[in-house]
């Protein structure tokens, strides 16, 4: 395997809320190789978005900060640099250039008062020193690359004149403008229709293969993970609870939370079978604990069917279950 583009070690990100510091992400290790797609999966509040914002240096100022850890990033220079402790200006020069991000809401993540073309051209003018005309021409080419018909006309239009799917293609074009080494996609298909979702996933997979980018794909949708990712990291209450290749984790989940998630995914034809049997779709009992009030030991223990006294003593380490597969469950060999 090539040297990783992104190598996060022992990341801990905290938020200051009402005078208290809450740990949003803890003990997080994650590494992505060039051309590889790693999916970060979890429910709302599990810390997956905070992780991506920590990498981008976009944590809300004065509220969120990285408390510990290193984020080694190998950008266009080819040398690995630690993003933690980098000056805001140095980070800004990497953002949109060496690493870029696609956001969840295509409806609101484009600026309504500038044309689509201007917005795609902007990072190239900032980072690559392109002239207005060069950047505008490149923006039209990018719109063509992301599969938008009649790109020259679309570039002159404003975001409100484009459909949701087309806007998301435009934000992808914007993220790819400077040919980044790392693309972070934060729930890029969540706000879209199912048919459009599939198109956007295909597009991302195709562009990634063409450009050899590393991709961090944040989602709560396991179906999407199966389709796009090479490896997956499942997050719960700020920690990765299980990680491994998609095949390994989906076929042999070694953490009760992952098992519960996989069981609760509805399958085609299953609904009628369940209705006939009179059983509801399996769910995970209980609710995600508040970060302000995490249980002792394993955060999942209160909801876990396998929980024993030992689970509440200390946070379980991420145990190697073999073949690059890890589980933060002390009973992983039994389940």
């Amino acid at each position, binding site marked *: 395997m090539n040297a990783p583009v992104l190598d996060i070690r022992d990341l801990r990100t905290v938020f200051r809320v009402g005078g208290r510091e809450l740990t949003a992400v803890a003990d997080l290790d994650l590494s992505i190789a060039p051309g590889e797609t790693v999916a970060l999966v979890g429910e709302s509040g599990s810390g997956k978005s905070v992780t991506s914002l920590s990498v981008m240096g976009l944590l809300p100022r004065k509220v969120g900060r990285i408390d510990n850890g290193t984020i080694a990033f190998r950008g266009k220079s080819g040398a690995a640099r630690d993003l933690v402790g980098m000056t805001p200006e140095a980070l800004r020069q990497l953002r949109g250039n060496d690493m870029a991000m696609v956001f969840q809401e295509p409806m*609101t*993540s484009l600026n309504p*008062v500038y044309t689509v073309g201007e917005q795609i051209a902007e990072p190239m003018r*900032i980072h690559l020193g392109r002239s207005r005309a060069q950047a505008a021409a490149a923006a039209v080419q990018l719109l063509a690359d992301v599969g938008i018909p009649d790109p020259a006309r679309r570039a002159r239009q404003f975001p409100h004149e484009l459909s949701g799917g087309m806007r998301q293609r435009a934000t992808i074009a914007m*993220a790819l403008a400077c040919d980044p080494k790392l693309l972070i996609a934060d729930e890029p298909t969540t706000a879209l229709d199912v048919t459009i979702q599939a198109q956007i996933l295909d597009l991302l997979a195709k562009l990634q293969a063409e450009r050899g980018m590393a991709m961090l794909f944040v989602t709560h949708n396991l179906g999407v993970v199966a389709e796009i990712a090479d490896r997956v990291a499942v997050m719960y209450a700020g920690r990765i609870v299980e990680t491994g290749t998609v095949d390994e984790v989906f076929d042999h989940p070694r953490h009760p939370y992952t098992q519960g998630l996989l069981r609760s995914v509805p399958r085609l034809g299953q609904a009628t079978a369940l209705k006939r049997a009179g059983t509801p779709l399996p769910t995970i009992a209980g609710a995600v604990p508040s970060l302000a009030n995490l249980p002792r030991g394993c955060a999942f223990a209160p909801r876990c069917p396998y929980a024993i006294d030992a689970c509440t003593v200390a946070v379980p380490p991420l145990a190697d279950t073999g073949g690059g597969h890890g589980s933060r469950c002390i009973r992983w060999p039994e389940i």
Partner: protein
Amino acid sequence: MTTFIARRLAIGLVMLLALSVLVFVLLRLAPGDPIDAYINPSAPLSAEALAALRARLGLDAPLPVQYLGWLRAALTGDLGFSTQRAGVPVLPLVLERIGPTILLMAAGLAIAIVAGISAGILSAVRRNSAADVGLSVLAFTGISSPAFLTALLGLYFFSVRLGWAPSGSMTTPGAAFSVPDLLHHLVLPAVILSIGHAALIMRYMRASLLEVLNQDYVRTARAKGVREFWVIVKHAVRNALLPVITLIGSTIGVAVGGAIFIESVFNWPGMGLLLVSAVSDRDYPVIMGATLVIGAAVIVVNLLTDITYAAVDPRIRVS
């Protein structure tokens, strides 16, 4: 866009017509008889002579007839004669007063817009800092200070005590016209006119920018590596300006009221001063003419506001 402007102009004309009816009726409802103000109080006229004068001036006809007579003449650009200044037609009288009022209002609004928007941006970007708190306190003071108070206080401190600014009129009497002299006379009334508006614009700008700074597209701009200065100025401020433009447009009508007051205090030879003296003299034709011209000006300014809005926000261009 052309149909939009044409439609707005047509609506404006209807509003002007309604305004003229309203002012006409209100004037006739007000106590007092224009004849009383017209005649020389030291030389009382006989009842017959009064009736004859009333008939000659058309004041004996029924109100609708009086109004239609005025309207017919007004449509040809004839707004009648001042009843107080013998033989002086209303239109040139009003027109020569427009310039000073526009100058005062434009200066006041320009100061209010520049000061209000920059203070609002500073306050929003440095939210909860000492500067933000200070500016907010200042803005609340400004909003709650009526013009009659600030005008008199300003006059007292800056003209009487400090002697920095002249206490009234547009130019130094007797001196040849010069731009520095005009500006010297303009500064104090314009600044005082701007206070309330600057404070209001600042509050709106601050609130609007704080909201915009939380928008997804601002985060997108940061994710693209846009410098923080340009994130604010290029991506956030332009969006935050939209509600502020509406506010500025709608305060211009209010600013006319403020200008009337400030013109009286500073003896500024504009429409306001003309209107105030016409009202106290019951000079009906001048009141009608001045109101109509002010109304027309406000309607045109509101139209310009809508056009500006469309220029800043592409989303409303099509509809």
